[in-house]
């Protein structure tokens, strides 16, 4: 179970990195093709914009798992033993609470977006849920990670 969980998060972070690589190559090729007067794709900009959101939400759970989210741990740093463990779990619990609320909100939005068949209409027209699904998946795994930190065996 644990291995499956970690593999899922790693797959997500690799997908996030590949998205960024793809954005680079796409933007680069578009510039080259435009300057050679071969073609110009106005959707490159919009796809890269969506790519930012997608790659960020895909990688966020792994960043949390690795402890790489920026935090001010000056107070915690000087604590030891039991005190530190308790505070750590308390903080994870706050994190869990907030992520759970956000998960609920995003799920609600996703549900309505699918139900109302909302579209994102710019140069390209895509269903809104294609984007909204990423925050939902991301927050789900963030909730899992905070749960492990709050209630798991080792701190």
């Amino acid at each position: 179970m644990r291995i499956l969980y970690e593999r899922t998060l790693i797959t997500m972070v690799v997908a996030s990195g590949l998205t960024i690589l793809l954005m680079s190559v796409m933007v680069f090729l578009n510039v080259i093709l435009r300057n050679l007067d071969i073609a110009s794709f106005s959707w490159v900009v919009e796809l890269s914009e969506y790519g930012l959101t997608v790659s960020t939400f895909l990688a966020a759970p792994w960043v949390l798992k690795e402890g790489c989210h920026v935090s001010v741990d000056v107070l915690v740093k000087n604590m030891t033993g039991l005190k530190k463990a308790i505070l750590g779990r308390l903080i994870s619990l706050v994190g869990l609470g907030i992520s759970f609320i956000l998960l609920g909100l995003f799920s609600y939005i996703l549900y309505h977006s699918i139900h109302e068949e909302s579209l994102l209409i710019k140069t390209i027209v895509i269903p809104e849920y294609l984007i909204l699904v990423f925050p939902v998946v991301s927050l789900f795994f963030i909730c899992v990670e905070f749960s492990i930190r709050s209630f798991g065996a080792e701190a």
Partner: protein
Amino acid sequence: MEWYIAIGFLFSTLFILMLSGLPVVFAFFCVNVLGAFVFLGGEFGLIQMARNSAEAINSFSLVPVPLFILMGELLFHTGLAQRTISAIERLISAVPGRLSIVSVLGGTAFATLSGSSIANTAMMGSSLLPEMTRKGYHPTMAMGPILAVGGIAILIPPSALAVTLASLGGISISKLLIAGVVPGIMIGVVTLLYVIVRCAMNPSLAPCDHDLKNPKGSKWTPFLKDVVPLFIIFFAVVGSLVFGLASPTESAAFGVVAALVAAFLYKSININKIFVALTETAKLSASILFILVASTTFSQILSFSGATTGLLEAVSNLQLTSIHLVILMLLTLLVLGCFVDQISMIMLTLPFFIPLVHTTGIDLVWFGVLVLIAMEISLLTPPFGLLLLVMQGVAPGSTKLTQVYAAALPFVGLQITVLIVVLTFPNIVSILQVPN
């Protein structure tokens, strides 16, 4: 609700959560939920807040952030960056504080390629620090210079943070990028002078070593071979801009492709290295952009609550002269910078500052450079200095955070001096500008 109650409520909650050690991004999310419920109005306010969050980083002007990070990570993980350093290292021998000087020069050189001060510090720290520790360098001379020049990456283009600042503040991106060059070099130079003077006065800070005696011929060959081609990457980015091939945002993609091509030509790339570079890029870019998701939404709620306009009116009523106003804003940034990261810093303050700057007719580009320097300084100010934390991460196991703080302190003093110089002589930022 009065604006000062709103602002007090939002900020005190935010600071308590941050200081408790909750990752900054979740502290912001917490305040966003509270703020949305109170100011945007209940259930629909919460839903709107979530929608705004999903939309927050959907902006083409942020695309260079992950792209420049990817470029830096590619250079780092393919070893190209380290080759540059060792090439520079060979040029300098038998000088007091040789390795400290190498880290200043190498860090400045890497700053011209990288838009990320985190990548810069991590790279210099992990490649030079072990050797300096082995040779008995004092922590101030070992970690200090690396920390000091780490931040130059945000002043010298390419710079993802400068792009972020310019787009958020409605400042001309190209002008701000060019304006940062001279102050960036100034910081490099004063750091270099400080290192040389201190080591000459007190040789025990950086014990002299004689194990590197190369014949003259072999000095310049690696320099040409390893440094010059890397500058071609720099020109790929800047050149695509100058020759009108690409927009400023698009030029970041040239950096990524050039780094890939360079790594390929130097036969230092394989699928494994690309894989590691991509993973690290995703992590670093997500940790920055995720904070932007939360802090952008926070600043919208702050505007919505009326706190932004309230504070603005209050400060305008103080009838400050523009120079006093600038000083007040910079002090705010420096104090705030002790506690929050660079992006949150500008997200929190720009909604207040930019309208003030407009109404008092302060030069936007000059102001932008001052903000960039203040951001750079706060990378090094305790308790929350991003580079201090990065440095502790890459330093040998026994290094305490307080030791890192102490190492950075003299260099914070130097950078504040540079800030005051740029404040006193605004023309510094326009030296390289093309006249209209």
